[in-house]
């Protein structure tokens, strides 16, 4: 039964939404905005793939093409992937999972969303004005002295959005430290909370470096005084160091939350406590910390000293150990489980497969000699799309399906859910697996046209991407459909553990009728199944 007084219908004016301090409503505001950006970025990707059907790249001009892939990168990285799970599922679930009434700083939370929207508007304005053609990496001196596109406007958008990320991270850390329900000790927390904590640490400590880097870049572009431009005495590698000091840890901002979501789903649908709880939990923290030591592996052929390359290569191998631990533990969790193949579980299993491939191909890039060959080719593109799209987006969609009854109080059509998950898995592999081969054959990234011997793989990839595109439209449609026509959800239809399932669906404005008391470890599935 839908409770008559939940967070959705307690006050329905537009003003009550735009001035809300309820973390659940802010999560929905984010959900709507990042979905919008996802489709803009996705449209850019579609045109890119269509253009690459033929070697001459006849669909769009080189200039347009360069703007398209830059726009795709900027929007997907900063306006979809980084905010995706933290701001939607994190915002919704962190207080619920720890038994709190709200985040520690609700007004700051709302401010984060407005900052995000402000930054998004800047970047959107840059796109409308004509776009930017530097690639999402903004490498100098191209971005400061040569590009005649809207670099400053785009950078301003990213700069502003960075603060949204910082404030969200700060809010989560404080909330997790200070607002846990009585009895909820650190090692009783759901893995999702651990992963959000680790993500937040990265957001707080890495993002400011991006901010200052973009600021210096803008100053150089405006005043023509050297910081990064060698013609003015600067060093372009300094930009790369600063940029990747943020952007490599940012990769973990994009994958750690996904790992958290998948841990929740697997435990629920295997009806088991996660195998090696402490290792899975602490490996998130290890990834967050070691992730800061490895940025130089983006610079093995950049003119960085060969010795620094060796140091960074070694450290990069270290960071892959905790990721491996997670994959092994998820697999072990399935052993002797009671496995229900529901939609979120299909996504989660797909995640493990794709993340494994993505993670293992990362080894190729950490091996110095091989990286020299595949750096800046489609091999790298395939690798990080396996992690970001195959991994993070699968986890995000899995999470949305898993908590959809809790968020909306409605049930989506299960058959459509499974069909979409399988379609996405198939389409994804067809899109990106050929790109590994393409990359090893030597196809460079960011190419508007290419030698004809590469065409066959590009055609495969484009075919796959059309399936992928369809796959994304499906959940979008039936989830919307379920809002109106779906059956009402009970408080805990999955029979899942965790405090968020102990309250009604959708939850009341202040989450719990009374503050819960926790006496057990997480994933207490032994008795319920």
């Amino acid at each position, binding site marked *: 039964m839908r409770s008559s007084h939940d967070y959705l219908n307690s006050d329905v004016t537009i003003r009550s939404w735009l001035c809300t301090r309820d973390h659940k409503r802010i999560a929905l505001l984010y959900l709507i905005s990042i979905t919008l950006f996802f489709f803009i970025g996705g449209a850019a990707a579609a045109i890119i793939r269509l253009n690459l059907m033929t070697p001459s*790249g006849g669909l769009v001009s*080189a*200039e347009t093409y*360069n703007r398209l892939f830059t726009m795709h990168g900027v929007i997907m990285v900063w306006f979809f992937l980084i905010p995706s799970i933290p701001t939607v599922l994190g915002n919704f679930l962190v207080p619920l999972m720890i038994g709190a009434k709200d985040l520690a700083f609700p007004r700051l939370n709302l401010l984060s969303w407005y900052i995000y929207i402000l930054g998004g508007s800047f970047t959107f304005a840059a796109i409308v004005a004509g776009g930017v*053609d*530097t690639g999402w990496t903004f*490498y100098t*001196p*191209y971005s400061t002295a*040569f*590009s005649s596109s809207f670099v400053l406007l785009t950078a301003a958008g990213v700069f502003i959005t960075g603060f949204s990320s910082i404030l969200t991270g700060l809010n989560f850390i404080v909330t997790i430290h200070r607002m846990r329900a009585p009895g909820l000790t650190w090692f009783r927390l759901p893995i999702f909370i651990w992963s959000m904590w680790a993500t937040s640490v990265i957001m707080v400590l890495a993002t400011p470096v991006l901010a200052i880097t973009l600021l210096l870049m803008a100053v150089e572009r405006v005043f023509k005084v050297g910081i990064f431009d*060698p*013609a003015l005495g600067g060093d*372009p*590698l300094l930009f790369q160091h600063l940029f990747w000091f943020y952007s490599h840890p940012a990769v973990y901002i994009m994958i750690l939350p996904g790992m958290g979501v998948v841990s929740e789903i697997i435990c629920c649908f*295997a009806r088991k406590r996660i195998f*090696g709880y402490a*290792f899975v939990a602490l490996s998130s923290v290890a990834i967050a910390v070691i992730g800061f030591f490895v940025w130089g592996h983006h610079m*093995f052929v950049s*003119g960085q000293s060969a010795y620094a390359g*060796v140091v960074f*290569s*070694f450290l990069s191998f*270290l960071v*892959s*150990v905790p990721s491996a*631990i997670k994959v092994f*533990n998820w697999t072990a969790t*399935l052993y*002797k*489980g*009671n*496995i229900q*193949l529901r939609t979120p579980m299909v996504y989660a*299993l797909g995640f493990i497969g794709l993340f*494994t*491939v993505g993670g*293992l191909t990362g*080894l*190729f890039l*950490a*091996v110095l*000699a*091989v*990286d*020299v*060959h595949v*750096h*800046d*080719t489609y091999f790298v593109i395939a690798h990080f799309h396996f992690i970001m799209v195959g991994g993070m987006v699968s986890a995000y969609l899995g999470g949305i399906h898993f908590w959809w009854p809790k968020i909306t109080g409605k049930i989506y059509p299960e058959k459509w859910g499974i069909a979409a998950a399988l379609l996405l898995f198939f389409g994804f592999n067809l899109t990106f697996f050929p790109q590994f081969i393409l990359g*090893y*054959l*030597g196809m*460079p990234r*960011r*190419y*508007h046209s290419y*030698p*004809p*011997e590469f065409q066959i793989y590009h055609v495969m990839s484009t075919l796959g991407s059309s399936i992928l595109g369809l796959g994304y439209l499906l959940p979008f449609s039936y989830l919307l459909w379920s809002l109106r026509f779906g059956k009402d959800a009970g408080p805990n239809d999955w029979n899942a553990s965790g405090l968020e399932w102990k309250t009604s669906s959708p939850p009341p404005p202040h989450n719990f009728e009374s503050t819960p008391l926790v006496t057990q470890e997480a994933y207490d599935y032994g008795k319920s199944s």
Partner: protein
Amino acid sequence: MEKLGFRSIKPWKNSPMISNSSLLALLPTQASTLASDVDLITIALVLLCGAVTFGLMSAIAFFVVRYREGSVVDRSPVRGVELKLEIFWSTVPLLIFICLFVWGAERYLEMHSVPAGASEIYVTAKQWMWKFQHANGTQELGELHVPLGRPIKLVMISQDVIHSFYVPAFRMKQDVLPDRYTYTWFQATKPGKYRLFCTQFCGTEHAAMGGDIIVLPEAEFQQWASIGVSQVSLRGSGDYVKQGQTVFERHGCISCHGSDSVVRAPSLNGLYGSRVFLDNGDSLVADENYIRESVLEPEVKIVKGYENIMPSFRGQISEEEMVSLVEYLKYSKTMSIKSMEKERGGRE
């Protein structure tokens, strides 16, 4: 020359190159000494990762089927193995990773240590073309002829943004930076024509900034070098050392750097490859970059015991002239500038 400065932007063409590339080839042609080494690591990695992926996926599939909801199987918990398993699957990957690291790093350092006696080619990149200068003064645009089986050192610089020199058949890639030389080397093992790509995004026509590397057997190469003109290549005037000497004299370098000059400036005899001590206590080995920087920004690295009095020559020396000047100073490593002066004087 400026007219030839831009390679006309043309679509990629199918060419008879890429010798053994069938339609679905999985490895590009191996045409350098490094290629088979890199491929060997790759194949090892593919096997390793393939085995791990296959093992994991099989395990997952097996568990999902066997322990599906409602199946009647033994689900009694196993106790006491957790820690052992965790230790096992964190240390074994770590050990494998360390082996991979050592293997890859060893080859990488090899890529960075140019064999002695490598012949040198200067590469200049600009939006959106590659230009090559051979030691004998021959210049080429968008096409590079190299002899088979000899180590070639590339000294590369960009005139505008960052580019990257990538020849898949050689498994070799190095960014080309503005205002600083970067180095790489290769030794071709197979005659043929190979694609050259720019792999660092460099502006609108980035995708068209390609070229061909043409590997010729020694005899054919000598023949090419003596005739030396393919359609896109052009011939410079005289060899580098002579050109460099002209530059050296035109800018009056000898008036300070000569051994009998009044102004005290460091001697340039045998400078290249020697250790230079700086007034801030550092020391370095004089390479192309040091020589270049000392001409353009003499105030940055001051030799111990000398005053900071040299003017900058930024804007007065083109990149080509700089290359010849560097070559001249390198040559003076074997023959002192003074004696070259005399030799020249004697001839006149």
